[in-house]
Structures are given as structure tokens and as C-alpha cells.
């Protein structure tokens, strides 16, 4: 077997590529050629490594030295100094608070994280199944189908307390159990990879960095519920994730880890990709089913729930990417291992994309229940340029804001709703005092107005009216009655919308009204935007 003394892991996540990662990689390849090192140094293109704001990044093993903000010009120096002489190029190292960190593990960004879902992201070549297998990939599946009954599998998942990471937090084991009990010749597993919340890219990172973990999770789910076919419904906006998934599926099929008679057992399971086409509502599971069936992505009535009658009218389990990526770890290490992270009711970890006004934006994974303060200040390095934390927004357009006074709130499925926010899929947007909360609410509402499927009245017409009122307020024409009307209308939309999108669409408005009512009042009464964002047409 060929061995390389240096493994240079270049992040090939979308963000690092966007930041010019490809240019750096090409320069590196060229330099290696120039110095005759191609036999000694292996370049591995990995998925996202996390601290995206510092990209493009590269980690050089065996030492694990992490280089940040790379440009093509840096390749020569790295090769000559580090690869040839073993001298780290210090100017490219991670610097924070006047400290310099040689490896990722030493950084405060990494220190408070626990990586289960992201265990392989940034560490393996996602386009090579053997690297995944080396990390224990597919061993859980193998154990499930050779040593365990579907009921055993469901029991472990139930015991682990794993909850759906797509937003609502429905217990995964229970969903599987319900699907397992359905009597049907055909059942389906759908992986919801239609990560739609603006400002969220956890799922994409997993798919780009460790696609096999999702495929394995799907196959285990298939075994548990009695399904032989899985679909991954993925946003068309994620071309790299699609490409890596296509490669992963192909390799898994060729290795006999997907397809007929997996590992010589009589369990068969195969996975197909279905591309979405740009509709946020397709993240809603019944809309997603319609879209997978080639129709307009409009939600269906529930009940029947997908576990009873889903894709093509058959029992269907829909799990999100992150949920599925947890599965093989739980099988491998047991429910108790999983339960040592997180809280009693929200066990395990959660990936967040920490973005916005924060020093180190990026992809993180922390135990559930980690206080918001730890995430923003310890991991994210606080607010840049001397600004102050004003609020964090979770759950995207369905979510709400957490104001500064609640910075110590544990981030889990129980505590967030108490503040009118939701966990959501993991988008975490940090805002400082330069953000106007009315404007932020308007931003989200504009989003839902655009993305409403238009089927039911409260969502189609109601959100539009709410937006009208917000526009009135942000241009200084609002009245105090408008604030009441917003609340009243918001409640009717929540109460009577057909699907989750509509039922949560008013949340950003209701939540900002709750925590930042004074800002609304300033817009209405004083005709002033305290953050100086809104162009108030009418001045007092």
C-alpha cells in the first residue's frame, strides 16, 4: 500500500472553495510537483472544517497544523518551509486575542465543541469510501443487519433520546417505531436535505464532508422500519453536496453497502437523489413528499401523517440529515454514550451555523443545552469591532430572537420555545446594535411571503398583510393599533395555517414584538429607527 508522510487536508467545503480554496489547492499541487514531493505528500480534499470565516484552510498531518486564510501565493512557502523543513509558517496560523494556535484542537473555537455529527467532517476525503470505512463507517449498519432485529435497533434509538434535528424535535425512535408498525409491502425513507433556512448550512456541510454517515443512517432506518428504498431530497443550490452524494452512493453500491443483499444478508436498501428546485416550503415534510413525486411542493393535509401514508401513499419516514448522521454513532457507542451529552430531554449534540456579527463565524457542534453565551463568546469569539451583542436569531424564518438578557439560556428543545424562539435546524445569526429588530422581522416576513406556497389563506394573504403593516411601521407611518393588529393577525395565522411554514411564519414578528417592543414603539411614536436602519419617510 502506498503511504504518504504528509497528509495535507485542504478544505473543499463550499465556503472555502468560495473563498478561493481551489486556487490555493492548484498552486499547492504545482509546488509539490516542482519540489518532487508528489510521492510524499497527499492532498486530501475534505468537507467543511468549521471556522469558515478563516478559510480557505488546510490542516497538515501528522502534526495537525492548521493554516488559515490561504491564498495561492502561500503554497510555495508552505511547501518549502513546512513540508521540506518542518517549520510551520506561523504567519498563516490561527490567531485570536493576540494568541497563536498551531492546531485546531488548541483553539477556543474548538475547545468547547463536541463533534459527533461532524466527527469526520474535515478529516476524511468524502469522495473515498475507504476513508470512511477506516473511521468505522458502515460497521453499525453491518452490526444492525447481522446481529440485531429491527426492534433492537429501534430500542437503542429510542433509549438514546435522539430527537429530530430538523426543527420540531420529534423523537426519532418513536417515528421509526410508528413506521415499523405499519403494514405495507413498500415503505420509504426520505432524507430531508432541503436545508432552507437562510443562514444555515449544517446539513450541507455534513453532506459535503461525510456523505456516507447519512447513507448509513438511512440504511439503518430502512432496516428498522422495513423500507428498501430511500430518497435524499436535496436543494439544487447545493451542487457540491449533490456531487459528493452521487459519488458516495455509487461507491456504496459498488462496495455492496447499498443495493440488493447488503453484506450477504437478505436486507436490501438503495438510495436515490431527488433534486429540489428552489422552494423553501419543500422543507415541510408533506410538501417535500409532493415535490419528490414531481408535483408542486404544496403541503398536504395531515393526518394522514407520512409514517402512515407518505411518498406514493406508502408509509414513509422523513429524517433530516443531521438526525441520520447521528444514528450510526448511537448504534456503535450505545444510547448511554449519546446520553452523556446534552440534557435529559434533549440528549446529544447539535450543529449550528454560527453566523452574523460574530468574530469567528462557522460551523460548530455543541452539546444540547450549551448556553448561548458560550456559543457566541467562547466559540464565536464575541462580537467584532467593539460592537455589543443585541440578539441572536434561531430557527430562521420560523424562529425568533433571543435578546441579550437571555444570553445564558441553554440551547435546547425545551428552553428556546419559552422565549418564543425555536431550535430550528440550527441557523444561529448573531446581531449587534446596528441591526434594527423591526427591520429584521420584516426581512423574515418578506422571506415567508415569497416562499409561502400560496395554498391556504392565512399564510398566503395574512403574511402579506403583516408585511404591509411592517412596511408602514418602518417608514414611520405605523400606529399603535398596528402593533395590536400584528399580534392579532399573527395569532390567527399561527392558529389556522395548514402547514408548519404558515404556523410559524409570524414568529419573527411576534418574538421581536415581545422582546423589542420598545423598538417598535420608537418607530411608531417617535418616528425613529433606533438602529438607524429604516429610512423613515415620515418624520415626527
Amino acid at each position, binding site marked *: *500500500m502506498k*503511504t504518504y508522510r*504528509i497528509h495535507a487536508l485542504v478544505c473543499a467545503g463550499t465556503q472555502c472553495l468560495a473563498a478561493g480554496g481551489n486556487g490555493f489547492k492548484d498552486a499547492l499541487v504545482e509546488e509539490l510537483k516542482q519540489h518532487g514531493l508528489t510521492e510524499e505528500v497527499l492532498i486530501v480534499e475534505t468537507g467543511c472544517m468549521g471556522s469558515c470565516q478563516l478559510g480557505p484552510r488546510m490542516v497538515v498531518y501528522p*502534526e495537525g497544523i492548521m493554516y488559515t486564510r490561504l491564498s495561492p501565493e502561500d503554497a510555495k512557502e508552505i511547501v518549502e518551509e513546512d513540508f521540506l523543513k518542518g517549520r510551520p509558517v506561523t504567519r498563516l496560523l490561527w490567531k485570536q486575542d493576540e494568541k497563536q494556535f498551531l492546531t485546531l484542537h488548541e483553539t477556543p473555537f474548538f475547545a468547547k465543541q463536541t463533534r459527533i455529527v461532524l466527527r469526520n467532517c474535515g478529516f476524511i476525503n468524502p469522495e473515498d469510501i475507504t*476513508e470512511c*470505512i*477506516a473511521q468505522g463507517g458502515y460497521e453499525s449498519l453491518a452490526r444492525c443487519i447481522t446481529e440485531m432485529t429491527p426492534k433492537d435497533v429501534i430500542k437503542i434509538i429510542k433509549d438514546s433520546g435522539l430527537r429530530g434535528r430538523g426543527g420540531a424535535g420529534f423523537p426519532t425512535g418513536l417515528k421509526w417505531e410508528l413506521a415499523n408498525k405499519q403494514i405495507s409491502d413498500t415503505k420509504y425513507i426520505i432524507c430531508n436535505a432541503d436545508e432552507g433556512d437562510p443562514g444555515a448550512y449544517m446539513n450541507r456541510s455534513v453532506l459535503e464532508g461525510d456523505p456516507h454517515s447519512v447513507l448509513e443512517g438511512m440504511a439503518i432506518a430502512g432496516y428498522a422500519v422495513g423500507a428498501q428504498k430511500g430518497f435524499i431530497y436535496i436543494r439544487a443550490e447545493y451542487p457540491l453536496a449533490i456531487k459528493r452524494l452521487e459519488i458516495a452512493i455509487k461507491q456504496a453500491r459498488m462496495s455492496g453497502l447499498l443495493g440488493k443483499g447488503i453484506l*450477504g444478508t437478505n436486507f436490501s436498501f438503495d438510495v436515490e437523489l431527488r433534486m429540489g428546485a428552489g422552494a423553501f416550503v419543500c422543507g415541510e415534510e408533506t410538501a417535500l413528499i409532493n415535490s419528490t413525486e414531481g408535483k408542486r411542493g404544496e403541503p398536504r393535509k395531515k393526518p394522514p401523517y407520512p409514517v402512515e401514508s407518505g411518498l406514493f401513499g406508502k408509509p414513509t419516514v422523513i429524517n433530516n440529515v443531521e438526525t441520520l448522521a447521528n444514528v450510526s454513532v448511537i448504534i456503535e457507542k450505545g444510547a448511554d454514550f449519546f446520553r452523556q451529552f446534552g440534557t435529559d430531554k434533549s440528549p446529544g449534540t447539535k450543529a449550528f451555523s454560527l453566523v452574523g456579527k460574530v468574530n469567528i463565524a462557522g460551523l460548530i457542534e455543541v452539546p444540547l443545552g450549551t448556553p448561548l453565551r458560550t456559543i457566541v463568546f467562547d466559540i464565536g469569539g464575541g462580537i467584532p469591532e467593539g460592537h455589543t451583542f443585541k440578539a441572536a436569531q434561531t430557527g430562521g424564518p420560523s424562529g425568533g430572537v433571543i435578546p441579550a438578557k437571555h444570553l445564558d439560556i441553554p440551547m435546547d428543545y425545551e428552553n428556546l420555545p419559552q422565549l418564543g424562539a425555536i431550535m430550528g435546524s440550527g441557523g444561529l445569526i448573531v446581531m449587534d446594535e446596528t441591526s434594527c429588530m423591526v427591520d429584521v422581522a420584516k426581512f423574515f416576513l418578506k422571506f415567508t411571503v415569497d416562499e409561502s406556497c400560496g395554498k391556504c389563506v392565512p399564510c398566503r394573504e395574512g403574511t402579506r398583510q403583516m408585511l404591509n403593516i411592517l412596511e408602514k411601521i418602518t417608514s414611520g407611518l405605523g400606529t399603535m393599533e398596528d402593533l395590536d393588529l400584528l399580534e392579532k393577525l399573527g395569532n390567527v395565522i399561527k392558529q389556522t395555517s395548514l402547514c408548519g411554514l404558515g404556523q410559524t411564519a409570524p414568529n419573527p414578528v411576534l418574538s421581536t414584538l415581545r422582546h423589542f417592543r420598545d423598538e417598535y414603539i420608537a418607530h411608531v411614536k417617535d418616528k425613529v429607527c433606533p438602529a438607524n436602519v429604516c429610512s423613515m419617510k415620515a418624520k415626527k
Partner: protein
Amino acid sequence: MEKIKSIDELRRLKEQSQAFLKTRQKDVKVKIYISVDKEENTNASRDVLLAVLDELKERDFSDFQIIEKAPMGSDIKEPFMALERDDLVIYYSNITPNMAREIIVSHAIKGQIVSDWVSKRSNL
């Protein structure tokens, strides 16, 4: 890519694949330190490194990492290499490519320290 037909085959493949990933792992049997401190020794050190790599390849030994880091002060006579095995670090200095090959065969692979050339030893 061939079809994996049983859980045992999967485990075998896992072991094989892990060997390939040794460079990235924490635990390896042998860590080989080769570093250059003085610019004039660059070429000689590089010859040692290439000899080491060649010998490891020849012997089909993969449970190692090569770390380009000087674990000692600057007074060491280069070319230099150190070998970490069984919780013990052995330093060899002033070596030639041929010496390096022997160190690999004898010490790295068989676990027998080439005592004649040892310049220093330390427990981890």
C-alpha cells in the same frame, strides 16, 4: 471497488484502510522524527528522509508517522533522526542514508535499538 460480502470482510477492509490513514491518526507504532535546523544540512537530511521512506516502502511497513520536528536542541549533529517506539524515544545523530535504512529495519520494524548509533534516549 469490490463488493464486500460479509461483516468480516468489512472489518478487514477497515483495518487495511486505517493503515492508509496512519498519518492522520493519533496512535501509531512508530514515530520517526527527521528535521533540519541548519540550512547547509538540508540536502543531506533530505537524502536520509528519502532512504527512510524507501526502506519503509520496501518493507511494506505503514504503522508510522514521520514528523519533521526537532525534539532536541540545536547542538545536535545533523543529519539527525529520532525514533519513538514502545514509549521510548531514541535519538540517532550524524547518520547516513544507509544507517537510516538499518535503523528502520532493525529498530522501527523489529524493535531492536541500534545501540551503536544512539546519541540519546528518553522515556516518554
